[in-house]
C-alpha cells in the first residue's frame, strides 16, 4: 500500500469516528465542554482532586530531515513506545491546582536486519502547576486565563546510560526541564476554545566528556472542545512544537519542529469517573516537521475525581 493511500485511510477513519460520535449522541447538546476534555490531568469544575492512569502507544512512522522532507521509516525497522502514566491532581485552592505524573515506559525497537529489542523502566517525573487568575465564564466577554508551570525531573534512564544496542532501555531525557506558559480559554455555547503557549528550557549538562546546552522549547496548542451531549465530549487539538538548536561542546546543532494534531473523546461514566480515548499523529508532510520524528499514537485514560 502506498504511503498516501495508507494516510488517507487513517484520516478517513478519524473523520468517520468523529461523525459517528457527533451523530449518534444519546441526548441533546450539552453545555460545558470543560478543560478536562482537553487533558485528563485537569480538574473539572468543582473538583478538588483526581487520580488517573493513562496508557499510550506511539509508533514511529517516519521522520523529517533537516531540509524538512518527510521520509517513511525504513522497511524492517520499527519503533514503538508504550507508556503508562499514573497521575494525580490536587486543587489546593479554587484557582490553583498541582499535578504529579509518574510514567512507566516500555520501548520496542529494531533496525532493518536486526532482532527487535525491548527496554522498560521508570520515566521522567513531571510536576505541573496551573493557576487561574481569571476563570472560565467569570466575566462576560473575557476569556479565562491560566498561568502554567512545570518541572520535569530526570528520573528515567538517560540515553547515554542505556545499555541496549538501539537504546530501547532509555526511558528519559536525562535532563532537568523547567517550563512555564499562559493559557486562554473561552466558551461558546457547547464549544470551548483553548490556546496554551508554553516555553521550557532544559538545564545544561555534561554527557561523559561532552557539554550540552539546550535552546528553549516552544509549544503552542490550540484545542477546541465540544460537548456533544451531557456525557460525551470531543476535542480536537493541534500542537506545534519548536526547539532551537542545542550546542554540543560549543558547536551549534540543528533546530527541530513538528506539528501534531490529536482527537480526544471523553465519556463521563459518573460524576467522579470518566474515560478518555484519543488518537494523535504527526502528518507525513515535510513542511510540517524538521529534524524530528513522526509518529502515530493512541491513548486511553481513566480518571477518578472528588468534589
Amino acid at each position: 500500500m502506498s504511503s498516501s493511500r495508507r494516510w488517507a485511510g487513517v484520516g478517513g477513519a478519524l473523520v468517520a469516528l468523529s461523525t459517528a460520535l457527533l451523530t449518534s449522541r444519546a441526548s441533546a447538546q450539552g453545555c460545558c465542554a470543560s478543560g478536562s476534555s482537553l487533558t485528563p490531568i485537569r480538574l473539572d469544575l468543582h473538583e478538588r482532586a483526581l487520580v488517573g492512569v493513562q496508557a499510550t502507544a506511539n509508533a514511529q512512522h517516519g521522520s523529517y530531515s533537516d531540509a524538512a522532507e518527510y521520509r517513511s521509516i525504513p522497511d524492517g525497522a520499527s519503533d514503538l513506545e508504550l507508556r503508562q502514566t499514573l497521575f494525580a491532581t490536587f486543587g489546593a485552592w479554587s484557582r490553583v491546582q498541582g499535578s504529579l505524573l509518574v510514567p512507566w515506559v516500555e520501548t520496542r525497537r529494531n533496525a532493518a536486519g536486526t532482532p527487535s529489542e525491548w527496554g522498560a523502566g521508570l520515566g521522567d517525573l513531571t510536576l505541573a502547576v496551573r493557576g487561574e487568575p481569571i476563570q472560565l465564564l467569570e466575566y462576560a466577554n473575557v476569556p479565562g486565563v491560566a498561568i502554567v508551570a512545570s518541572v520535569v525531573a530526570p528520573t528515567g534512564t538517560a540515553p547515554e546510560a542505556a545499555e541496549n544496542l538501539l537504546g530501547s532501555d532509555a526511558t528519559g531525557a536525562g535532563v532537568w526541564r523547567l517550563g512555564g506558559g499562559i493559557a486562554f480559554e473561552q466558551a461558546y455555547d457547547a464549544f470551548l476554545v483553548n490556546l496554551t503557549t508554553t516555553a521550557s528550557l532544559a538545564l545544561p549538562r555534561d554527557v561523559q566528556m561532552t557539554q550540552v546546552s539546550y535552546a528553549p522549547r516552544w509549544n503552542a496548542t490550540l484545542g477546541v472542545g465540544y460537548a456533544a451531549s451531557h456525557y460525551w465530549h470531543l476535542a480536537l487539538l493541534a500542537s506545534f512544537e519548536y526547539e532551537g538548536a542545542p550546542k554540543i561542546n560549543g558547536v551549534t546543532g540543528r533546530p527541530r519542529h513538528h506539528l501534531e494534531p490529536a482527537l480526544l473523546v471523553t465519556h463521563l461514566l459518573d460524576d467522579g469517573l470518566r474515560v478518555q480515548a484519543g488518537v494523535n499523529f504527526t502528518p507525513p508532510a515535510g513542511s510540517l516537521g524538521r529534524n524530528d520524528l513522526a509518529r502515530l499514537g493512541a491513548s486511553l485514560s481513566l480518571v477518578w475525581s472528588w468534589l
Partner: protein
Amino acid sequence: MGRGWLVGCCLLFTLGACTPRDPAHTPSHPRLTQAERVLASDVVDTQSRTHSVGDLVSTKAWTALVFFSATCPTVSAHDARLIALWDAVRNHDVGLVMVASERDASLAMLRHESASRGYPFPLVWDRNGQLAAVLGVRYASQAFILSRAGEVAYAGSIDSDRRFLHDDATPYLRDAITAVEQGQRPAPADDAAYGCALALER
C-alpha cells in the same frame, strides 16, 4: 523582558484573586442591605409580567430559588427531583421558583423550557442577571432559601449529586426546607454548589 512577564502575571493573578466573591459586601449600594437589594430586584415571568422579588417571596414564609440553565446537565438531571420537591412542599408555607439569569436567556426560551420540562413552579427571567449578582450566584442549580424579608436562610446545592443521580444522595435543599420550617438553622447553610458555570452579564 522576563521580569516584565513575571510582573504582568503577578498583577493578573492578583486581579483575579482579589475579585469580590460576594457582591453583598461590595459598596455599590452602601445604603441597602443584601436582603433589601434582593427584594428590590425585578424578574419577569413567562407571561411577560414584571415582579419584584419582594412580591414573589411575599406569598410564602419561605421561598426556594434555584438558578436555571437550559443546557446545564446538572439542572436537567434534577428536573424530576425538583418537581417532586415542589409536590412535597406545595401545601406547605414554602414556594419554589426557578430563575434564569444567563445573558442569552429570553422569554421565548423560558416558555419553551418550562413547558417541555413540565415545571409546575414558575421559571422567571432575571434580566441582566441583577438577582444573580446580588446573591453572588455563579453556577446553575445553585439554590437559595429566602425569607419574606429577603434574608438568605440557605445557599448551596440542590443535593450532593451533579449529572448522575444516586439513591443515597444527600438532599441538602429538602433538608434545609425542613429545617427552616421547624425554625432551625439549616446545616450546612452555605454548602458548595455543583452545577455549571453560568454565562452572566458582568
